[in-house]
């Protein structure tokens, strides 16, 4: 049996590793793959082990495996996660409220308040044993299985700092009698816990957002649907729709299922599925898809695919898969922590032993003090702060520039991208049809004609007519009254004005009425078609007097942004659901060599995957639901701010201005942030590398120097402050 289940309670990538390593050797378990970002586990097992046993085993190491059907599971998981987030928040607030007075006392009063140490001890207790309790329980569970993670390090350093402080509070005489000051480190312990809780809280919040993209996708289908059953109209719930059912769609209704039109004519906005900006005309026999929106006109459709079979459901599934297959870079830091913890513990023990057996005098005192100094100084504070602080400043800097970074991993990866995939509609182009050219016959007085065109097109329901109206409205006032208006489905419209017949529509309309087109206009029309523009003909009686070209305009900044990206070595591909001719024309205009037309939503994601398999670091920029899968699959998903919510939630980065130049900025920001992280890590490590041996007393044999634990504590704070300061420097970095 191979099944995927949700797991609750994982706090870091190391949790994933430890669940894997704990389950794998169990009898009956063949394969385990834990996915941290998706909070799930795929287990392959045979009948030597029961699922309940696996659940029990997982519980033993502190996590909850959620069993049940997929829908129940999702709900149970969401509830658990919500509870977890709420409890994390209260723990964080609680911890912060108690930590601040401790910090102020330790930093600014230093012994001037009577019973200061006792007060600080009392205030620390709830922080350690309520807010931070999880660190100790997880560390303990890990210890039982001889493993360690970041929690172990936190538990160890804060625990030692606390116990040592308690000892010095209760019994200050011990060290005083040996000529040493009995310092306390309550503030270090509580501040570490507060900061780490803050980091966890921010991370959890970001994680909970990914599932909301899926929820929104699911929300695209209507809750109630009007159907005809046995000749009578009735309103039923969405999940009661059966295959073959006749469904009534009114204007503005969302299509609930994949189906085919039985009766009626209307335009359906399919941009979320196909990316095609112009709503498509649907007549008897046309296919319609779940999640699209009926614009004008009523339709009766027969459900051909319902529930999980619809194209929309397939997209949802793909987005889910893509989100769950993301590699966890965070593993790195935890791997480091996994090595770092035992080394530090080893060093502390070694220090104890060396002092105890080799020191000439007061050996027990030093044997106790030095390992504690080692543990305090090895506190992961600076290491723990190195990445999150830089990321937070980077994310803030991005927000200032209109680049919203949802998951930090995108910011970590963006500077590495070598391939960028651009969706055409709404990303490279504006995403809606606009009039690009109006060409009149030379011998015509166009002024009145434009008014007539405006009057006729105002009556029409066609989306292209709307674009023409928008364009003409900007400059003209409708002052003419037309007569005998008639809309001709699939062709255009006609009307009379001052006893003259005017027709506006496609080439077929002109051919049907044997209207002749002057050579000059015909040539111009052909040229416009080659540019992938839709040409609308305007005739007066039996002659074409003008043409209007409508197209999805390229955004003003697209071309220069593409040039800039190509210059920094990014290979650009364009994908579109549009036809070959349009794709080619647009690609040529913006300077993209690689493009693919007629691409279905699922294919976009697969294309990203293919490139990733070739070892490319792929960024995808798009704005539609049809891009959601690819956005989630890409190493860096970039959503256009003007796009759909689904796109924004599937992507790691959202650009507030729908402008490709922002991608260049995002790459620069990523580079600057990563540089800061590397500098931070360097300083944190160097500091540990130098400070730990000194704390252990390496200098003692040479010049009798022993690091005072208080100075160790101060040095530790300094390293954190230097990391913070370095991160804040990022704020002033120039990104243009």
């Amino acid at each position, binding site marked *: 049996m191979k099944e995927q289940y949700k797991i609750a309670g994982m706090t870091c990538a190391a949790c994933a590793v430890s669940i894997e390593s704990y389950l794998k050797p169990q009898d009956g378990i063949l394969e385990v793959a834990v996915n941290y970002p998706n909070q799930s586990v795929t287990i392959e097992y045979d009948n030597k082990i029961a699922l309940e046993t696996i659940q029990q085993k997982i519980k033993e190491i502190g996590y909850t495996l959620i069993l049940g059907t997929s829908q129940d599971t999702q709900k149970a998981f969401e509830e658990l996660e919500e509870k977890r987030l709420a409890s994390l928040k209260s723990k964080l607030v609680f911890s912060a409220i108690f930590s601040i007075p401790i910090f102020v006392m330790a930093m600014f009063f230093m012994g001037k308040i009577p019973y200061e140490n006792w007060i600080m001890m009392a205030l620390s207790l709830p922080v350690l044993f309520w807010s931070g309790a999880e660190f100790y329980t997880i560390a303990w569970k890990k210890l039982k299985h001889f493993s360690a993670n970041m929690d172990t390090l936190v538990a160890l350093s804060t625990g030692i700092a606390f116990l040592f402080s308690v000892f010095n509070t209760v019994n200050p005489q011990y060290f005083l009698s040996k000529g040493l000051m009995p310092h306390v480190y309550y503030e270090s312990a509580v501040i570490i816990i507060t900061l780490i809780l803050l980091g966890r809280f921010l991370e959890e919040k970001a994680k909970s957002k990914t599932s909301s993209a899926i929820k929104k996708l699911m929300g695209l289908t209507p809750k109630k649907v009007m159907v005809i059953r046995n000749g009578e109209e009735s309103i039923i719930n969405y999940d009661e729709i059966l295959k073959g*059912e006749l469904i009534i769609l009114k204007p503005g209704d969302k299509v609930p299922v994949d189906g085919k039109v039985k009766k009626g004519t209307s335009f359906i906005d399919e941009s979320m599925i196909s990316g095609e900006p112009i709503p498509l005309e649907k007549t008897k026999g046309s296919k319609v898809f779940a999640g699209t929106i009926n614009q004008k006109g009523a339709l009766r459709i027969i459900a051909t695919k319902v529930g999980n079979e619809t194209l929309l459901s397939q997209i949802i599934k793909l987005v889910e898969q893509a989100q769950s297959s993301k590699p966890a870079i965070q593993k790195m830091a935890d791997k480091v922590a996994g090595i770092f913890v035992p080394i530090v513990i080893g060093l502390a023990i070694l220090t104890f032993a060396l002092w105890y057996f080799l020191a000439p005098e007061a050996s027990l005192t030093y044997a106790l003090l030095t390992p504690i100094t080692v543990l305090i100084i090895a506190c992961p504070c600076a290491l723990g702060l190195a990445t999150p602080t830089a990321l937070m400043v980077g994310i803030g800097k991005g927000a200032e520039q209109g680049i919203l970074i949802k998951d930090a991993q995108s910011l970590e990866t963006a500077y590495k991208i070598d391939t960028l995939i651009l969706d055409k509609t709404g990303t490279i182009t504006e995403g809606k049809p606009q009039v690009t050219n109006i060409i009149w016959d030379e011998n015509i007085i166009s002024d009145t004609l434009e008014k007539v065109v405006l009057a006729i097109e105002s009556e029409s329901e066609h989306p292209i007519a709307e674009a023409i109206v928008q364009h003409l409205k900007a400059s003209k006032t409708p002052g003419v009254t037309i007569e005998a208006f008639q809309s001709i489905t699939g062709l255009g419209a006609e009307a009379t004005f001052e006893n003259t017949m005017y027709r506006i529509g496609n080439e077929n309309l002109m051919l049907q009425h044997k209207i002749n087109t002057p050579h000059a206009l015909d040539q111009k029309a052909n040229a416009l078609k080659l540019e992938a523009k839709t040409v609308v003909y305007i005739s007066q009686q039996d002659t074409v007097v003008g043409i209007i070209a409508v197209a999805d305009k390229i955004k003003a900044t697209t071309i220069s942004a593409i040039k800039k990206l190509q210059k920094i070595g990014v290979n650009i591909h364009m994908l579109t659901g549009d036809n070959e001719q349009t794709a080619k024309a647009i690609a040529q205009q913006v300077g993209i060599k690689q493009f693919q037309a007629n691409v279905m939503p699922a294919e976009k994601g697969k294309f990203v995957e293919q490139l990733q398999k070739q070892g490319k670091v792929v960024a995808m920029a798009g704005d539609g639901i049809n891009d959601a899968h690819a956005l989630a699959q890409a190493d860096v998903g970039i959503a256009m701010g003007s796009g759909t919510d689904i796109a924004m939630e599937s992507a790691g980065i959202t650009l507030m201005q729908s402008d490709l130049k922002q991608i260049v900025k995002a790459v620069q920001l990523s580079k600057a942030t990563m540089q800061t992280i590397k500098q931070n890590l360097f300083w944190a490590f160097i500091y540990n590398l130098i400070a730990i041996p000194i704390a252990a007393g390496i200098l003692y044999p040479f010049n009798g120097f022993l690091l005072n634990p208080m100075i160790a504590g101060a040095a530790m704070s300094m390293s954190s402050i230097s990391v913070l300061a370095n991160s804040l420097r990022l704020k002033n970095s120039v990104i243009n």
Partner: protein
Amino acid sequence: MTIVKYKTNIQCTGCIKSLTPVLNNLDNIDSWKVDLESSNRILEVDLDDNDKETVFNAVKGLGFEIEEIS
């Protein structure tokens, strides 16, 4: 449009459920309903053309008895 009536042995809503996708998918049918109250279980079909055979065959194909009555 022609309205054609058939006498059938369509019994219940379950039968109608199985009939629904078949009749809806027939191109020449505009609308249809079965009168479960009547003793003859009359199926009334609004036909686009005069092709009564398709309806007859479709219903027959599902195992029901069907006979044109007007």
